[in-house]
């Protein structure tokens, strides 16, 4: 049966082209892969190859013809011994170029509705507590989860024999052995890729970055390999993995070791991002992160490691990812912070109380998903919002929160929201300059004074 050879599109944008030259003439036999013609687009000259066996029965478009539209029949291919049909049109197209099924335009992105929620909704009471450091809480969370699930293992630089660069993994090598607590060479790109590969098979690695600054070496695997594979595989291949380590400025370590990656990672669909403040946050959220079937970025803070907080002793204690906590109730202004900035906000709230201003303080706990319900619920009560973070202001977490509050509670606001953030410079080394670069409680107090 005779078939038409159509003018091909050689690039996604090509609509027409010039048929420069025929390399086969009528009567020539061709087989798949043979170059039969050369065509030219605005960008390049390219070769057209035969895809079927046959004989060039008739050339419909002579060489030199310009502006040949894509999908126009350019020749007719016949089988050996067959004659060319009378009219070109009577040959069947090689493959009818069907127009694709009707496309439905996706709906414009609109802000999802925020369900109403009572602000006073308190979290589960876990009973008895004890004073522990954030460091111990993190270690305990890992140990509990590793006891519970053989598929959980920890890898990173200095996590095993050295017991952790910041002593977070103290005792884990002893209890779980070197199969499950693995020292890595200084090779973040490689070992993160390895961990993600293992997670794609269903194992549940915890990757410790000595600090999150070094996760930049591995950010390709975190985003392109871990966060996107579930989607790219149509839901087949999830990636249950935790990336954790100290994030944000430490003390006097200079620009390359003092940065908050909260907004970097929170930008990415396919990731969850968690930033604990207290020991209870650290323990409850790390356990949830390890159990989560998705990649979770777990942002710790070096300054907080040694701080003590009361933490439930219950062996089942766990916190949900995506739920903020109201650390202090108030009616006059809402302060929203995460990680160490929760402490800054609480200190500011104490100072404000002396002036008779009652601040409500929200500990975000999770950056993605963001608990916008709790924030909006609070703003509807206080009508004023100040966000606090150590990261830079530009495209920061504060910017996102303010935008979402404007989307959902514009009419409740009595004053423009304010962002308190790290100063927009690389972190300086000198003690005085470093202090000037990071949000202090009185910055928050001053911001609030302008609002009330």
């Amino acid at each position, binding site marked *: 049966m005779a078939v038409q050879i159509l003018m*091909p*599109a*050689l*690039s*996604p944008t090509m609509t027409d082209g010039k048929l420069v030259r025929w390399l086969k003439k009528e009567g020539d036999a061709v087989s*798949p*892969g043979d170059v039969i013609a050369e065509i030219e687009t605005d*960008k*390049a000259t*390219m070769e057209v*190859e035969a*895809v079927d066996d046959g004989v060039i029965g008739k050339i419909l478009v002579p060489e030199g013809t310009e502006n040949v539209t*894509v*999908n126009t029949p350019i020749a007719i291919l016949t089988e050996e011994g067959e004659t060319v049909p009378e009219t070109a049109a009577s040959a069947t197209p*090689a*493959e009818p*170029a*069907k127009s*694709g*099924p009707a496309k*439905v335009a*996706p*709906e414009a992105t609109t802000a999802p509705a925020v369900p109403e929620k009572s602000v006073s909704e308190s979290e589960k009471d876990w009973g008895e507590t004890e004073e522990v450091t954030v460091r111990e809480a993190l270690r305990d969370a890992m140990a509990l989860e590793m006891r519970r699930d053989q598929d959980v293992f920890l890898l990173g630089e200095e996590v095993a024999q050295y017991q952790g660069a910041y002593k977070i993994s103290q005792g884990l090598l002893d209890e779980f052995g070197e199969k499950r607590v*693995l020292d*890595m*060479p200084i*090779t973040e*790109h*490689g*070992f*993160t*890729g*390895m*961990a*993600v*590969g*293992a*997670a*794609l*098979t*269903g*194992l549940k690695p915890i990757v410790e970055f000595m600090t999150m600054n070094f996760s930049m070496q591995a950010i*390709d*695997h975190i985003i*392109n*390999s871990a966060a996107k*594979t*579930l*989607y*790219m*595989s*149509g*839901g*087949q*291949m999830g990636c249950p993995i935790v990336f954790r380590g100290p994030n944000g400025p430490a003390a006097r370590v200079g620009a390359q070791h003092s940065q908050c990656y909260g907004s970097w990672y929170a930008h990415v*669909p*396919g990731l*969850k991002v968690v930033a604990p403040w207290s020991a209870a946050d650290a323990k409850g959220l790390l356990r949830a992160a390890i*159990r989560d079937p*998705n990649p979770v970025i777990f942002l710790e803070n070096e300054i907080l490691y040694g701080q003590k907080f009361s933490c439930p002793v219950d062996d089942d204690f766990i916190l949900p990812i995506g739920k903020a906590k109201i650390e202090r109730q108030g009616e006059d202004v809402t302060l929203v912070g995460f990680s160490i900035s929760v402490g800054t906000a609480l200190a500011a709230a104490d100072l404000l109380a002396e002036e008779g201003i009652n601040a409500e303080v929200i500990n975000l706990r999770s950056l993605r998903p963001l608990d916008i319900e709790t924030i909006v619920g609070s703003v509807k009560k206080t009508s004023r919002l100040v966000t606090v973070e150590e990261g830079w202001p530009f495209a920061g977490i504060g910017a996102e929160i303010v935008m979402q509050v404007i989307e959902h509670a514009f009419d409740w606001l009595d004053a423009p929201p304010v962002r308190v953030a790290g100063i927009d410079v690389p972190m300086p080394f000198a003690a005085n300059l470093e202090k000037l670069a990071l949000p202090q409680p009185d910055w928050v107090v001053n911001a609030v004074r302008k609002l009330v």
Partner: protein
Amino acid sequence: MNDGASVTDKGRNDPGLSTAELEHAFHDMLLIRRFEEKAGQLYGMGLIGGFCHLYIGQEAVVVGVQLALKQGDKIITSYRDHGQMLAAGMDPRGVMAELTGRATGYSHGKGGSMHMFSREKNFYGGHGIVGAQVALGIGLAFANKYRGTDEVSIAYFGEGASNQGQVYESFNLAALHKLPCVFVIENNRYGMGTSVERASASKELWRNGEPWGIPGKQIDGMDVSAVNTATKEAVAYCRAGKGPYLLEMSTYRYRGHSMSDPAKYRARTEVDEIRQKRDPIDHVRNELLAAGIEEEKLKKIETDVKAVVADASQFAETSPEPDPSELYTDVLVEA
């Protein structure tokens, strides 16, 4: 050091593939070629968009490797992945439907030509970042070892990718932890428009693992039996717990890097010569004929393959596009 290292290993000193296996190889290689030609055609008709990296010319590599694997062994590769998927036994319909962005594709149309996966066939993708699959590949091998199986992982990558830093990080990690990973460099001589000579100071890529004690071999990647023999050896080494192994397959891609590549960086004669003298499918065809297989039998295979490809293409073209609601699904696993 380096027990299996040797220079070009063109000939074979083991019995190689049986006639039945050769027939199987002929079928699979032809399936890949016809499938890719069809994909090229559908691209030309506007039914496939974006990037589309064809595997034509390299068929002996994946087919030879696949015939050396057993159930449970894992595979990972780059964006030039259609051949790997077909060799791994994935359904041509699902692959073609994914190429055309349809709901019935392996990733429901959300992955495309470069991103398909199959847990069932242990195919771990389909990765678009050059070199990423190598680090991920040792992770698959890590999982094999962690679970105490004797399964191996195959990480395919181009000679262009072999210059990426993470490849060497992976060599180190795999050797350090004795991970059962066969690194397969598909040296098709070009990374886009840059020839291997212009990109690699190392002239013997098969020796690139030497500092880590990773044995390496250079293999004629146009000869499916040679590929298979070498892979069997590499896989046995890995299964025995000795660590990773590196194979450099000398191969060639006939088509451009992707569909819109005018291929000005090489002479037409270079392509023609390889096509005429080293074509991997002609090679296996000749081997089969020499082994006494009748022409008729090969013709029958050709007809069958054509029908499978036509069916896949028909299936893809008539499948619906994904429902708009698919846009929002599979971002996170709902716990």
